[in-house]
């Protein structure tokens, strides 16, 4: 029982309003000054099934998912049965007594039960069943000992546009639930949050949203995409804010059109992005290769979900790492980034544009359903925002910058390339850095010619095989400078340890939490976490350490990547591939970890 780190799970069928219940509660908690982390599990259907909305809240928490919860509120019988095993013995079960088919399983020493007849209250006190969900929110607020005023604010914001009456009814519903829950005092007091003081603006926001906003902040002004879970939220967000942020969004007829439109837009001067998931990414790979060949900057978000093929469309996985790194036929430089969490997604999106513009390459940003959909309380520092924007701005005039780089190379060439209007211009001028001066068609009298075939410096098709070799070298050469500025893995408590966990992308919080738990149990464990995966920078791995990768896939793809790049010998991989995100418990209790620690299961107690 840790009142500073409480797990709440709400379950129900799709279409039952589960998401609203969870979101209102989580946002109210965040607004109240707590750290909140919320994630979801849902089926690929619009109505029915068993979904859950999970919240982790406290004064200071790890923004990572957990496996078991202290408070459980089921909205229907089916999901109640499915998720009840996840409730801790000292937890509290909030339920509607009346619902059919529900057996009270709570026993002495087991979870406390708080009964709140949501539907009955909604109907009898508020005249409409529709308010039942808000009664549930109120009950949860009561159990947690929240200030109802904050909840009322959120309800007003959410339902305001439906009119004063609806808002008032919602507020009354919350109060009814609150009162009934707090009246059942012994159970209610169990999980009251300690009071907290709000400090600074905190945003309760998801990975898809921060990524989209980061892109816009970095100057993204064109996005074409075809809907595909879990990436659809990005274009939905940018469409909603299209006019405000100045981003032209277009739903393409397929993913091939999406990436080619983006390439066309970028060629003509837009900052262009697309987003998709694995199957759609397959269809985009030829376009990735085109961007590489024509040296057209662009950003591709690859929101992973479990494959192969359609797989589990609404679940999570990190199964596309090696595919993304090797995506596209032929050889060309690209960068692959994988944000660690929603905050990182904001900065990585901006970084992706910076790298794309600077090196005139495609940049792939890998997220997954878990990161895309999870909400967390982020205390974004406006100054850091500024820095990111500035970093991006630095590359805004890609043309000018590239000319400078080019100037470093061949003087005569740079003279031509860099000269102003009216001068000779060679889109693919051979330069020392491999970066050629970029201009946009119509910007001046210089003609901008780009070719998918192997081309000469002016951009025209060539069959000169010596030139071909030079052009390959020019393009590949960009990779070397790029490699210099790729961040090494984040080293987390690796001093004097014998075991290091290697991980990438969205799992950072879970892995670092696992490290904390292992260390608390006396094990010398550290972690190296990668968020920039290609090209991998020079890096020296400490000797005498056993390395284990921790991955949301079956194939141990990070392990294979690191062996391939560093010839690093690995001790094993902890892999999860059931469609759920990695958690510290999963890692700590995995047989590989247990074997690694050599303690035959000493860590096998639940979180």
């Amino acid at each position, binding site marked *: 029982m840790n009142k500073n780190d409480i797990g709440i799970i709400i379950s129900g069928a799709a279409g039952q309003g589960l998401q609203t219940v969870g979101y209102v509660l989580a946002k109210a908690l965040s*607004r109240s000054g707590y750290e909140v982390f919320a994630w979801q599990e849902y089926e690929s259907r619009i109505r029915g099934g068993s979904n859950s909305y999970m919240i982790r809240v406290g004064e200071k928490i790890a923004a990572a998912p957990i496996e078991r919860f202290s408070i459980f509120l089921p909205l229907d019988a089916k999901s109640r049965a499915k998720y009840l095993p996840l409730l801790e013995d000292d937890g509290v079960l909030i339920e509607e007594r009346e619902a059919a088919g529900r057996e009270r399983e709570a026993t002495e020493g087991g979870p406390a039960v708080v009964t709140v007849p949501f539907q009955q209250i909604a109907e009898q006190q508020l005249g409409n069943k529709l308010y039942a969900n808000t009664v549930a929110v109120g009950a949860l607020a009561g159990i947690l000992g929240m200030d109802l005023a904050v909840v009322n604010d959120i309800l007003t914001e959410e339902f305001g546009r439906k009119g004063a009456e609806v808002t008032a009814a919602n507020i009354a519903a919350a109060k009814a639930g609150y009162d009934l829950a707090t009246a059942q005092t012994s159970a209610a007091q169990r999980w009251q949050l300690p009071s907290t003081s709000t400090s600074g603006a905190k945003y309760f926001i998801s990975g898809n949203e921060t990524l989209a906003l980061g892109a816009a902040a970095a100057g993204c002004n064109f996005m074409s995409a075809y809907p595909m879970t879990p990436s659809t939220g990005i274009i939905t967000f940018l469409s909603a804010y299209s006019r405000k942020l100045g981003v032209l969004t277009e739903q393409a007829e397929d993913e091939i059109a999406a990436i080619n439109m983006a390439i066309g837009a970028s060629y003509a*001067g837009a900052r262009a992005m697309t987003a998709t998931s694995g199957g759609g990414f397959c269809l985009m790979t030829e376009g990735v290769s085109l961007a590489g060949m024509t040296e057209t900057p662009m950003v591709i978000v690859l929101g992973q979900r479990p494959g192969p093929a359609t797989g589990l469309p609404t679940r999570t996985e990190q199964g596309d790492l090696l595919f993304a790194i090797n995506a596209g036929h032929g050889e060309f430089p690209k960068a692959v980034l994988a944000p660690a969490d929603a905050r990182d997604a904001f900065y990585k999106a901006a970084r992706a544009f910076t790298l794309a513009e600077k090196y005139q390459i495609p940049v792939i940003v890998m997220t997954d359903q878990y990161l895309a959909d999870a909400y967390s309380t982020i205390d974004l520092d406006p100054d850091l925002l500024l820095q990111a924007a500035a970093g991006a701005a630095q590359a805004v005039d890609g043309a000018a910058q590239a000319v400078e780089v080019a100037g470093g190379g061949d003087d005569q060439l740079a003279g031509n390339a860099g000269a102003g209007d009216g001068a000779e211009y060679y889109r693919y001028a051979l330069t020392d850095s491999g970066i050629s001066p970029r201009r946009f068609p119509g910007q001046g009298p210089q003609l901008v010619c780009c070719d998918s075939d192997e081309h000469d*410096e002016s951009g025209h098709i060539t069959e000169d095989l010596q030139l071909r070799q030079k052009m390959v070298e020019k393009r590949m050469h960009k990779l070397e400078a790029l490699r210099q500025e790729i961040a090494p893995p984040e080293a987390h408590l690796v001093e004097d340890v014998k075991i290091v966990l290697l991980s990438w992308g969205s799992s950072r919080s879970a892995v670092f939490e696992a490290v904390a738990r292992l260390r608390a149990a006396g094990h010398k464990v550290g972690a190296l976490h990668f968020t920039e995966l290609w090209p991998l920078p020079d890096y020296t791995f400490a000797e005498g350490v056993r390395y284990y990768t921790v991955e949301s896939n079956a194939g141990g793809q990070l392990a294979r990547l690191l062996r391939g790049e560093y010839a690093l010998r690995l001790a094993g991989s902890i892999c999860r591939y059931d469609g759920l995100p990695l958690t510290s418990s999963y890692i700590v209790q995995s047989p590989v970890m247990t074997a690694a620690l050599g303690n035959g299961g000493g860590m096998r107690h639940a979180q």
Partner: protein
Amino acid sequence: MRNNNNNNNKNDNVVTLQDYNNKVENQWCPGCYNFAILTALKRALVELQKKPEEICLVSGIGQAAKTPQYLRCNYFNGLHGRALSVATGVCAANPHLTTIVTTGDGDCYGEGGNHFLHTIRRNPKFTLIVHNNQIYGLTKGQASPTTDKGDRTRLQMSGVENYPLRPLALAIIQGCTFVARGFTGDIPHLAKLFVEAIKHPAFSYIDVIQPCIIWGTRSMNWYKERVYQLPADFDPSDKQAALAKAMEWEDKIPVGIIYKAPADPVFADRFRSEVGADKLYEAPPPDRSVIREVLNSYC
């Protein structure tokens, strides 16, 4: 290693054919009717007094798709089948360019068929010129979607079995407001069609009969015997009549503007007018205050 893009402009501001010439070696077969299209296109651009730097050609892969190589102007020569999508992006980013797609029947109707369908619906302001030789030229003579039934090719050795695509009719059905057929046997007429198409304030489309003298299944004469210009009294605003004309083939093949209707608003215009954006490379990133404002709704 370089094909000089030097501006040939003389000091006056009159655009001449010479402005569109470059020194790139042409890779088409001697006598190929693609040359007729190239000539007609240059003439049209001169007639419109467009400067090379105002033009943006976009193409895919194929013989037709090599056209941009042989014309001094901006171009993006992309992937097989994807020219329409690239051109849509170009128009979105810069509406001031005169964007023209030069593509083949395989490129546009085969690999690129889905973009043909949907680009028309989207109505971006550019001109689509399809060099329709009813064959895959560059890959050495396989049937294209427009190859006639029964024709024997290098791959369909005992004859094509598929029903041929009727692209003009498809375009009309999809809401295209400028649909024409041109003929490489008549360059002045073709140039005129190009002029009209480029002037049309919305998506415009011309399918051009361009016999392939190497792999083609029909000779220039076969076409010459069948091609006729639409009579002066033909009303291109009558959709049903246009559809009927668009389906004509085999015995008689009409050329000219087959369908023309008032242009609908074009792709991205609404965004542009609402945001006040013009060329996207000149659009500044949103102000930090705007980002903060959006973020604040997540407080």
